[in-house]
């Protein structure tokens, strides 16, 4: 009993340590004070000024850039990754292994190396850096994750279904649309979500590829802001909103995953029952 309380207490302690900084940000987002840690009474001023444009224009701008870049990068890398995964899956073992090996490099590489290597690429090609290079760089490090999340679906798939569709007169494109795409759709969705969040969260790759024209995403904005000494107070409100959105999204995703797992379990049960009846 004592053991149980102790071990539970330990976990709670760790969680408190993990959440204390976030809690402070969230609490102090409800006070106007410029300096964090200085409570000057409850107010939702930071939230209203975040949305009314009272905040420095550059933050809204950075937020917009972040979402545009993340959306474009996630869409393109999902498309590219899907096509690539289908193609790679059909290759022979040796080639497949070689491509998978290269595909893993950006995943294992530290962000800073990916960032610098892409920076050197753009510099050597003489491409001026800005929106285009950031998006290309994000596609470059997101697509491998999309490929990785689609691959298992293709491996699990019964190849005979595709062959059967062809035998029954479907064109390869029809078979693709009707058979393969529905089968790998969950992998595509999770790949898209992964790419989107990776892109939003990225700092190291962006800072090396955003050029000198002052293109800022949320992370580079925060970095520049913090280096100037102060943190724009509205960022506390923004971080709190991001946290709440993330929590809600995670609850939805987990709820869906749990439901799907349950459904799969039930299907499994039915199959075994059927098999038993047959016997």
């Amino acid at each position, binding site marked *: 009993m004592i053991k149980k309380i102790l071990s539970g207490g330990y976990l709670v302690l760790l969680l408190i340590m993990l959440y204390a900084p976030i809690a402070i940000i969230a609490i102090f987002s409800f006070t106007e004070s410029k300096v964090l840690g200085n409570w000057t009474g409850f107010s939702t001023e930071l939230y209203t000024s975040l949305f009314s444009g009272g905040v420095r224009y550059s933050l809204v701008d950075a937020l917009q850039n972040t979402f545009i870049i993340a959306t474009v990068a996630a869409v393109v890398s999902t498309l*590219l990754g899907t096509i690539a995964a289908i193609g790679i899956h059909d290759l022979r073992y040796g080639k497949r292994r070689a491509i998978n090996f290269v595909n893993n490099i950006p995943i294992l590489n530290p962000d800073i190396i990916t960032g610098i290597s892409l920076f050197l690429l753009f510099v050597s090609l003489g491409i001026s850096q800005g929106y285009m290079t950031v998006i290309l760089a994000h596609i470059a490090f997101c697509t491998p994750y999309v490929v990785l999340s689609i691959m298992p679906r293709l491996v699990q798939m019964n190849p005979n279904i595709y062959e059967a569709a062809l035998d029954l007169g479907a064109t390869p494109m029809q078979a693709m649309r009707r058979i393969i795409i529905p089968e790998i759709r969950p992998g595509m969705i999770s790949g898209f979500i992964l790419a989107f969040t990776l892109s939003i969260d990225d700092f190291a790759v962006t800072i090396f590829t955003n050029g000198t024209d002052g293109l800022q995403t949320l992370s580079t904005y925060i970095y520049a802001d913090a280096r100037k000494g102060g943190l724009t107070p509205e960022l506390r409100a923004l971080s709190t909103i991001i946290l709440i959105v993330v929590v809600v999204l995670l609850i939805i995703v987990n709820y869906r995953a749990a439901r799907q797992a349950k459904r799969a379990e039930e299907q499994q049960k039915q199959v075994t029952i059927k098999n038993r009846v047959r016997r």
Partner: protein
Amino acid sequence: MNSLVKYFSRRRTWSIPYVIFLAIFVVVPLILIMVYAFQSNDGGFSLANFEKFINQPEAANTFIYSIGIALITTIICIILGYPAAYILSRAQLSTARLVVMLFILPMWINVLVRTLATVALFDFMRLPLGEGALIFGMVYNFLPFMIYPIYNVLQKMDHSLIEAAEDLGATPRQVFTRVVFPLSMPGIVSGIMMVFMPTISTFAISELLTMNNIKLFGTTIQENINNGMWHYGAALSLIMLIIIGITSLFTDSSSEDGGNEGLL
């Protein structure tokens, strides 16, 4: 015409765009790091960048200091994370899942926001920023990456092995040191990889947590690149890549028996 259609409807053809893409955006950039590293500023082959690294005590010291910080962070993460993972693996599955999710949740907030939150916490508690704050911030940022793989391995462990050890007369301590701990090694190894590698390559985090007083190797690389010293920056990047390569080789060989399962 017909053969063209046939060619493009073959699925293996579909891998070609991605192969080209990988070549341009993964392979060539990495080769470029090597090319730049072995070039002097006028473009000829030279080892000057590496000589500079060895002869310049500042960069070399930063390098060693960064490895030290990464090691300390990794060790603290194991000491704090292993018990947590162990407790979770013994808890009811639904509770454990919830708590694991709570541990991972902060990871979804931007690293810089989390780091600034740590700075805020230190300010709030009137603690000075510096080395202590740096290590706290690193542990805070990377602890979940240690807990998760260890928990995964412990959770999948065959419970009958523990029962067998107990039946054969092992004390609880022996069961842990002789059975549970060795079997959880793959999880620890992937945890080490997931903590050590990012800590050694961070920049920005250390600047914010120490008011720019302590420099880590990542910061040195970034400063050189920003100041137009591309060749030297590339050489430093190559040194970091080598360290990471060695780490992953070392961890790979010791986790061959299915350790990768701990990763995701």
